[in-house]
């Protein structure tokens, strides 16, 4: 167990030190899934655990910790808890500091590296794109650059998800209030049109995104997604076991160009999972860059 919540923060509003079982659960989730709940989010984690505890009929956090570690249901329960932790995170402009860092720092570096290559084309991959909010956000952001830094460039966004229904929704491109709550007014007016009670993404934004149903463990399918500058894979790896995680990371590694970037979700880490990527700090965000090593051939099943 980590030091008692770096002895820095009181469990919100409780006026006392955090429940040790809650800290154990926080550390377990980080160890197993790679997603971290900082001390100021412990109250939120407690709420989410409470929801699961209600379903299971468990009253103490200590007993719930057992459900996540020793009971036969532990794997399924971890998935259920992760679902609670990441619930409601799918929306346009989900992680603004990450998007700002991408635009202000990473894009500049990618363009520098890419300009040494013959074709002026960018390829971004939203891996685990769910219902399409993330790739469309990227599309809008890059369209904004087409008269400036991306003048004379082409770009495409590959968007993949395992879920057929999510892909169908994404292709449709119509969204309700919840998904669209963070869209700045400027983007709302420029890139959306009213459709019934929702908003539909305009064709220019859609045209840049190529949706496909892909299993990230499917080496044969993934092998076709070469030459990528940047992968965004938010809150997806947390559901994989370590061995599958490593396989997916290997796929990303093989498909990214040497200057390639991997962005994960908020508070999501690759620590202890892979040495293929190095953590880098950007303004109020983190990302991973490829380390230099020999490319490993993908194992394609014939």
């Amino acid at each position, binding site marked *: 167990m980590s030091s008692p919540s*770096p002895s820095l923060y009181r469990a919100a509003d409780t006026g006392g030190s955090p429940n040790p079982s809650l800290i154990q659960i926080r550390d377990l989730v980080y160890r197993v899934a790679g997603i971290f709940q900082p001390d100021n989010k412990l109250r939120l984690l407690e709420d989410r655990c409470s929801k699961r505890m209600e379903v299971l009929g468990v009253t103490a956090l200590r007993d719930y910790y057992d459900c996540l570690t020793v009971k036969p249901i532990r794997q399924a329960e971890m998935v259920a808890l992760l679902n609670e932790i990441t619930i409601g995170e799918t929306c346009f402009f989900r992680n603004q500091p990450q998007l700002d860092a991408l635009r202000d720092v990473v894009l500049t*570096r990618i363009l520098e590296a890419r300009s040494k290559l013959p074709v002026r084309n960018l390829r971004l991959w939203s891996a685990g794109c769910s219902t399409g909010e993330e790739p469309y956000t990227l599309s809008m952001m890059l369209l904004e650059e087409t008269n400036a830094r991306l003048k004379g460039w082409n770009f495409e966004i590959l968007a993949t998800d395992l879920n057929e229904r999510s892909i169908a929704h994404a292709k449709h491109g119509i969204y309700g209030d919840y998904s669209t709550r963070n869209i700045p007014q400027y983007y709302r007016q420029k890139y959306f049109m009213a459709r019934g009670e929702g908003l539909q993404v305009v064709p220019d934004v859609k045209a840049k995104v190529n949706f496909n149903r892909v299993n990230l463990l499917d080496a044969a399918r993934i092998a076709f997604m070469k030459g990528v500058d940047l992968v965004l894979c938010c809150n997806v790896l947390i559901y994989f076991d370590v061995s599958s995680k490593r396989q997916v990371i290997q796929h990303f590694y093989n498909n990214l160009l040497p200057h390639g970037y991997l962005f994960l979700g908020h508070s999501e880490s690759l620590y202890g999972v892979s040495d293929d990527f190095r953590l880098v700090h950007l303004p109020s965000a983190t990302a991973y860059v490829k380390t230099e090593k020999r490319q490993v051939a993908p194992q394609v099943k014939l």
Partner: protein
Amino acid sequence: MSTQATMLRRKLENLEQMPTIPTVLAPLLRYLEQPLDRLEVQQVVDLISQDKSLAAQCLYLANSPLFGRWQTVDTVRNAVIALGLQRMRDIAVSCSVLALLPQGKTGIDPVVFWEHSLGCALVCRQFAHKIAYEDPGKAYLAGLLHDIGIVAHLWIVPTEFASSLQAASFQHIPLHEAELRILGTTHCETGKLVAERWHLTPDLIAAAGCHHDAASATHDRALVALVSLSDLLCRMCGLGYGYNEQRQINFLEEPGFAMLAAECPSLESFDWARFTFELEAYIEEVHRLVSLVYRPQ
């Protein structure tokens, strides 16, 4: 060095315009340098209580979970007993330096400045604990005082400093780079002068003087490196000088990394990602704390 830079340097070397730390602090620090078995709680309480404003601010900080408190303490004596002498020293120094900025409009938002200084102190201490650095208390002090050169700039070359910060903010570059261009010197060089003038210990002088060029430190290299990395981490995580430095940092390639790893081998396998995520909670608390403690007069 240009004529202007030489003139600025002369002004800086002549630091009379700048206030010094509260009178009570020097005897307090000296007293606390003694072996633990010679220290008396009442003596420390008496020293802190001599300065009413300092005592009141100490109580604010003492009640913060950032200093490990979960229950309310309402007297200086209780605070010293509950938190220990070292923590009280940290708190007293923190409160003392808060009073050093010039009043009125300055080239930097004082709240932003103290959030950075206090945040850096806390990050230094937590980082030190995590990598088993020998003296987390010293790391805290070094973090708190690392930017003392900025305070001197605000007193002595306010206009030029304001231009430096403006340029840094506009170009999204580190402040010391803009200072070097505009002032011909940096807050590190000035910080070294101030720290020497205040007769701070050589390790604190080194941290104030070399935190932007850790490799240049000739002694106390691990402490300098620790402050350098913590300062950079704060600036990259939104606890800088009120603007974003648009850059990409790989901490493993920073000069301070190898210097610190030589003394703290566990740094080689340090989980930077987790520490960064933990900062989210620090930042929130530092904002709250500074807004409570810092009251411009």
